[in-house]
């Protein structure tokens, strides 16, 4: 039988989940609620119901990550890409801007969890830095460039169909850094975008800054692992499956340096 007290506890657990930097290991009440969620089946269902009513999904509740929540479509808790990828310049096409920001987030996760094992292993802690994320995407762009060159067909983008330009070209073309008059990093550069993404993820409790080296070095949190593994990767993967451009992987992962054929 559900009492008012149970509902309050379930709602409290959800509200703890909304404070991403709070951890069960540092809060007795939070820790107790997480333990109860694991043991009490009725409480678990009640928590899910409370979350669903608010427009939230419970991805996982455990002692390392706490309550990891995700917003359902059209929920008030949703973060829209449009508001994140604020357009700084009218000249650039809006879609390009969105794709670049999305790629930066994807690359951050890919560098944080380079192999499928790392994503599956609950104890794995990844490290990312602004410099590494940017360098990794640029390396991937270089590989795609070499592949394009090998294909022997001329696949420079068509001048009158900019939306058919491949995403890697847009990324490779964007400068990594640019000096501004007041010595700050320009936000239109790829490093500016990566720095913004990492700070954003840190605010969301997904990354923790370790040092300022390499433009800002961060480590991943269990929360981020859950979010990527349980939701984000699948969401993007489904889109790619629809486009029929992905293949089945083995356990080794495919993040590799290119063979040295330039020397």
């Amino acid at each position, binding site marked *: 039988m559900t009492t008012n007290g149970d509902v309050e506890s379930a709602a409290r657990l959800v509200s703890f989940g909304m404070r991403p930097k709070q951890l069960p290991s540092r809060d007795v009440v939070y820790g107790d609620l997480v333990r109860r969620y694991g043991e009490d089946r009725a409480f678990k269902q009640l928590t899910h119901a409370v979350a669903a009513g608010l427009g939230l999904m419970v991805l996982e509740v455990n002692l390392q990550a706490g309550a990891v929540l995700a917003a359902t479509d059209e929920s008030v808790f949703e973060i829209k890409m449009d508001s994140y990828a604020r357009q700084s310049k009218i000249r650039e096409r809006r879609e390009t801007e969105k794709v670049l920001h999305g790629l930066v987030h994807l690359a951050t996760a890919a560098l944080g969890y380079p192999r499928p094992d790392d994503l599956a292993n609950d104890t794995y802690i990844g490290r990312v830095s602004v410099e590494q994320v940017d360098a990794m995407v640029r390396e991937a762009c270089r590989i795609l460039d070499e592949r394009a060159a090998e294909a022997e067909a001329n696949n420079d983008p068509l001048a009158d169909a900019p939306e058919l330009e491949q995403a890697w070209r847009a990324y490779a073309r964007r400068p990594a850094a640019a000096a501004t008059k007041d010595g700050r990093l320009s936000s239109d550069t790829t490093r500016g975008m990566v720095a913004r993404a990492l700070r954003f993820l840190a605010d969301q409790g997904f990354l923790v800054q370790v040092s300022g080296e390499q433009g800002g070095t961060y480590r991943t949190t269990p929360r981020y692992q859950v979010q990527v593994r349980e939701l984000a990767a699948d969401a993007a993967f489904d889109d790619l499956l629809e486009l029929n451009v992905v293949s089945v992987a083995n356990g080794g992962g495919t993040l590799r340096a290119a063979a040295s054929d330039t*020397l």
Partner: protein
Amino acid sequence: MGLADEGLTRRLKALACTAPLHDLDARKAKLDWADATIYQMAEIALHTIDQVTVSMDFDTGADHDQVIARLLPFVALQAPGRTPDEHAKVARWVLDNLINVGTTDRGFRRVYGSIGPGGGYQRRQFDFKLLVELAAPDGEVYLRATDEAINVLVGALDTDVESAQIAAEVKLENLINRGRLADAKLAAEQARYRTVQYGETLRAKLDATRRDVRAVDWEREVPDLLDQALSHIESRFRAENAILKNITASRDETEDLDRKRRAAELVDIVGDCIRRHTRLQSRLADAGAVFRAEQDRQQFSGPPQRATIDLFGQLLMPTLGLPIAQAVAPAESFFHAGAGISPPTVPSLSSLVSLLLRPAPERDQLVGEIPEPELMPADVTDKFGDEQWRLADDLLDLPEVPRRLSGLLEEARRIDPGLPALVALRAVHAYSPEVGAALRLGERQVLLAVDDGTLLEDPEFGGADLLLSSAAVDRHEEEEEVA
């Protein structure tokens, strides 16, 4: 695609790379802060690329100010009479234009045509950069020359680096033995560019190693690479030290001043090559330590525990390969699902007050770049003075009876010899009056011109003898009425 077409495309692209340099000379006359026609901008640009290229090394290169400082003597040579301030400004202008400051991508784009698979003509875009800005580990921004720029500068350098270098060294030794110092200098400089290119390639490899140990084949590929690089350095050391000894001797012994100077320059260049090799060698020596440290840091984990997605291979690479229009969906989905939630902020009255009273937040570390538009001075358009405008207003105020243009011109000529031109222009303008604009601006009347087929007979002007009349603007019905 036939072979001939590819050759054409290559040549078109090579041509495009030189365009920004020609462009500088074409635009120099329009600069408003100085009469810059005296400067040879393309020369300064080549010199700039030169300076950036020679200061490139493993971690960094020269920053903007250093490059400009090195450019100044060359710029000053071209216009000794001008102030140092202007020289610096010219150097800065050339540098900014080579980076193409002010565009989002900081690069250049040329559209060229090619014959598509179906035989049709397709316009394609070729994007390239000459100088790029990169961030050093300490966060400072420095400059590097791109492959395109190096090709523009020295030409045909994208050959096999190692064999090209050996050839250049042999050539250099021969040239010195025969005393051809001018040629020897050229060869030595080319050898230095190759050294830089070689180091650049190695830098990329070491960077990849540092990013992920598992990504690099440390059993065969990297040790092979390091061995090759080390033996390369060894042989270069031997060759360059021999050359150095040779030319130092010829520098000290020769009586001819010009020869002495050239030999001294050569000594500098070869000395610089040796310094670069030393730096490359210390990098190579560190590579093993980098691997071991990274191995410790990037801990190895056990066998797969559950099936998950390979983020790099199954998400990032396929998405990068998609056209922008299609890549939006996966990119947005990943962001949407991976960004977490944001609880909406609902300020209570008490917190709202403190929110409003809070001091302004520190400015964001990131800021969009503010492009500095290059403005041309506006042409002086006031051909007619205020007095002439007033007289023309009086003449063209025709509320009652329409008048012919010929009569008005006659009258205008009597008042002021410059006036007929203004009257004629305004009459022609009135042939298609902007009624909407007049309405918005609150004008009470507009001038209307009607062509009834009569020819204008006038010593200065030709065309139709227009009938001119002022028409009142009826504000209520938002229509004009002809008086």
